[in-house]
């Protein structure tokens, strides 16, 4: 390859998130806002699965809640035809993520599965990624949180317990992705099938509003719901190319 073409190849890769030409998997989630009732089962399931600490009342009063997925409420109209709609907001694992460019030590980057990885023990806590994230889905450990015994027996051994000074966010339950890949590798090295891997929130959503899967597999349920005519992406005009597709709420 001539020097120039090598340079152009490098530049083209440089423009890609994580310098990949092709993603290995391309994990995606769709959220059907017509089905979401705002019951917040996903919030508790996520806290149970990912060792998210309970920060206590005065930390909440200071505005330091710790929830990787939060339900945002938007009222439309006034009484008596007031309507309330909910929108679950979690890390969108954007393919052009503003947070990945700003971390000085590269603690957050795009990996080959299309995930925005947040490596806890590489993070030095500049919190620039939280500023750059337009979705406000990055949460900072302001203190070392402790679990009153015996609550710590419930901690999930597959997920790090984060110390103070570290940024954390939704990881699409990376420990479950790793587990699914492990099982798939045992089964003569096949790929993870659709439905084998479900994050805790998708698994517990009582109205099945949340669907998760690999966008590269065209028979997967997420691929179909991703191309549902009602699909849109929040703050799409910012060109973050997010991997979470929302389906519009239907007004009948």
């Amino acid at each position, binding site marked *: 390859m001539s020097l120039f073409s090598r340079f152009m190849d490098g530049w083209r890769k440089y423009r890609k998130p994580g310098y990949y030409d092709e993603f290995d998997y391309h994990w995606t989630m769709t959220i059907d806002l017509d089905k979401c009732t705002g019951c917040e089962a996903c919030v508790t399931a996520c806290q149970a699965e990912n060792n998210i600490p309970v920060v206590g009342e005065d930390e909440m009063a200071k505005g330091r809640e710790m929830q990787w997925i939060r339900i945002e409420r938007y009222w439309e109209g006034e*009484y008596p035809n007031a309507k309330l709609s909910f929108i679950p907001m979690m890390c969108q694992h954007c393919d052009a993520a503003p947070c990945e460019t700003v971390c000085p030590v590269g603690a957050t980057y795009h990996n080959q599965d299309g995930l925005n990885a947040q490596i806890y023990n590489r993070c030095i806590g500049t919190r620039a990624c939280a500023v750059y994230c337009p979705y406000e889905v990055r949460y900072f450990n302001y203190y070392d949180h402790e679990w009153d015994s015996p609550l710590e027996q419930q901690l999930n051994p597959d997920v790090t317990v984060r110390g103070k000074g570290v940024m954390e966010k939704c990881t699409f339950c990376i420990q479950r992705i790793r587990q699914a890949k492990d099982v798939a590798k045992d089964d003569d090295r096949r790929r993870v099938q659709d439905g084998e891997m479900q994050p805790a929130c998708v698994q517990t959503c009582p109205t099945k509003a949340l669907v998760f899967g690999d966008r590269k597999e065209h028979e997967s349920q997420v691929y179909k719901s991703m191309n549902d005519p009602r699909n849109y992406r929040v703050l799409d005009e910012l060109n973050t190319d997010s991997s979470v597709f929302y389906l519009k709420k239907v007004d009948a």
Partner: protein
Amino acid sequence: MPNIDRREFLKLVGAGGVSVGAGFMLREANKDPREYLIPHVLAPEDFSSGLDTFYNSVCSMCPAGCGISVRTREGRAKKIEGNPAHPVSQGRLCTLGQAGLQALYNPDRLTAPMRRTGEGESASFEEITWEQGLKQVGDRLDLLRAARRGNRVAFLTQGVRGHLAQLFESFMRQLGSPRLLHYDFDHPHTLYAANQQFFGESRLPYYDLANTRLLLSFGADYLNNWISPVHHSLGFGESRQGRADVRGRFVQIEPRMSISGAAADEWIPAKPGTEGILALGLAHHIVAEGNYNGADLGAWTNALADYTPDAVAEQTGVPVNSITRLADSFVDTTPSLAIGGGAAGNHSNGVDTLVAVNALNYLVGNIGQEGGLVLNPEPAGPAVQQHRASYSAMVELAEAARQGEIDILIISGTNPVFTLPPAAEFAEALAQIPLVVSLSSFLDETTALADVILPSHTYLESWGDDFPEPGVGFSVGAVSQPVVSPLYNTRGTGDIILDLARRMGSSSVMPWQNMEEFLKYGWRRIYQRGDSQTLAQGFDAFWTSVLKAGAWGETTNGSTAFTLNPDVIAGIGVAPPEFSGSEEDYPFILHPYLSPNFHDGRGANLPWMQELPDPMTSVVYGSWVEVNPVTAEEMGLSEGDLVDIQSPHGQLRVPVFVYPAIMPNVIAIPIGQGHGEYGRYAKGRGVNPIEILSPLLEPITGNLASSATRVNLTPTGGRVKLVKTGGVSRDLGRDIVQHTSLGVEVSSAADNSIPITEVTT
């Protein structure tokens, strides 16, 4: 070597020595602390280190009875998930079900039997052994039984089903005492009574939400905590977007928008207590428009004669054209379904309202149809005639205690001191009972007044089973097995009762050593019902297969044929609701509703639940009163202003939350906070609206009309910062939640999102 004198040399050697020592200690300091690797003595067979083991069980955080599958690692429970094989939960769970682990590992659990010492203020509990505790209670029971005065023993439990209820019943039968009461604040007494009146059977039918195309819900918050929230959510999701070409429509009629109201297509604020009148208004319109031509048409027309849309509109505050439009769409879209309950059932006309809702279903003819109201078959569980205690039954119990007719009261799993209004004076009645025994796992308000505490396991450590009440249209059962070995010196509720039965000499009738044995004995009967193939493999194989699957079912459906006896039609009619307190000095109607996080207060000691933002207001760790924006404007109130809520029977001080979807003369406070005891997470937080409810009764069932209290609102001028996670809950034109209308094929290219074929990154 540069010439240095002796003093210089000695100084250098000294410094060198010190620094070598310092270097040595520095390395010692940053060595990892010594850790141990403790092996097993005998290698366990059901789990290996580093791998997960899943156990199926049943969730008992609320009466719905969803099947759960608990992931454990090396003997510790890590995560609760729904059991995909269980028809009620189908692999899904609600927020309270997910938080079950914090009940198991709660730091404020009772760890050993205790006995009260000292009196009055200086009363405290001292730890005793199980032998002492059981002996003290067992001997008293034996004495009473021998003296044929067993009826002086009362047993108060939460609404349990399955073999535990049967155990309690046979235990009380041994004592010859009729006083076995199942008491829950949120038990829908009026719905059971309405079904008894209308269908002739006091059981809940199966509401087939999944296949319906229009649901009218009169006050029932079916997505939050009405009867079976997870199953209803599954049905809601299926009806909304589950089918390719059809989208179910949901209409909610209630004075304050609940979670189901937010999810509905249309929220219709009707005056509190007039939901039944609205239902009859719709029925009148259906019959008047000739859309009903059953044989008993004549009886219906004169029964519904005076419920003309105008009269109904005036009484309920719902405009006439809404009534007619709703009635027509209820008839045109088939299958359609009407459900009622929740706050609508907690008025003085509760039963009539729900009979009216059943009438609507009858007029449209969706009883027994798919997508309508399916009558449940006989429950497969043990035949138990549960005496569900209404509010007046609890007042009678308190009265009997005051008269000194009760020597022993055993309480298991219910917390009446918190869930009964002070007008019942239940706490004072407890003081009159010589021996109060509590089997609760936590020190809640009632257990704090007990004399002897025999703490029982939480549901993840004990045996039990459950046959879900409204079920899924066919009979379903599931066994709840322990997923972890017990943490503390506690025992299963069933084991305690069996032990007490042995001590009072009825071990011949109740021979089982522990709850597991009793369960197997009970399930042998269900095993007999099995087809030849299950009978062939023997009971043990059947038992392990039920434990492994976590669910058991029979495909016997309920009867679809249903004939309504004529005199029910004559009795149709809903009187306008009465309220306690006059309109002048108590202008507002209090609408207490079950909080999504704490149900009726049982979830308040779970840290996740305290920290979960309330779905509608995003407030955490506290209570609030929801006020209509216009009313708040008039009274000069804004979010966080402290106000005094005064009812004829009590007063509360609580901050205001301006709530856009509540009627102007109605204010709402969530139930669940305001605990005096119940652990570090719940104690001293928020207020309990039950404390100011006036003891107005619903005449037919005798239950408390909890939505029928009038209150007034006086600002105190104080302000507090309402702790909440939400910021400004208005979209400000940013299209964050985007909407589309039905049937419009919005091709993805139309709006500005990138056409998604294969997003080439």
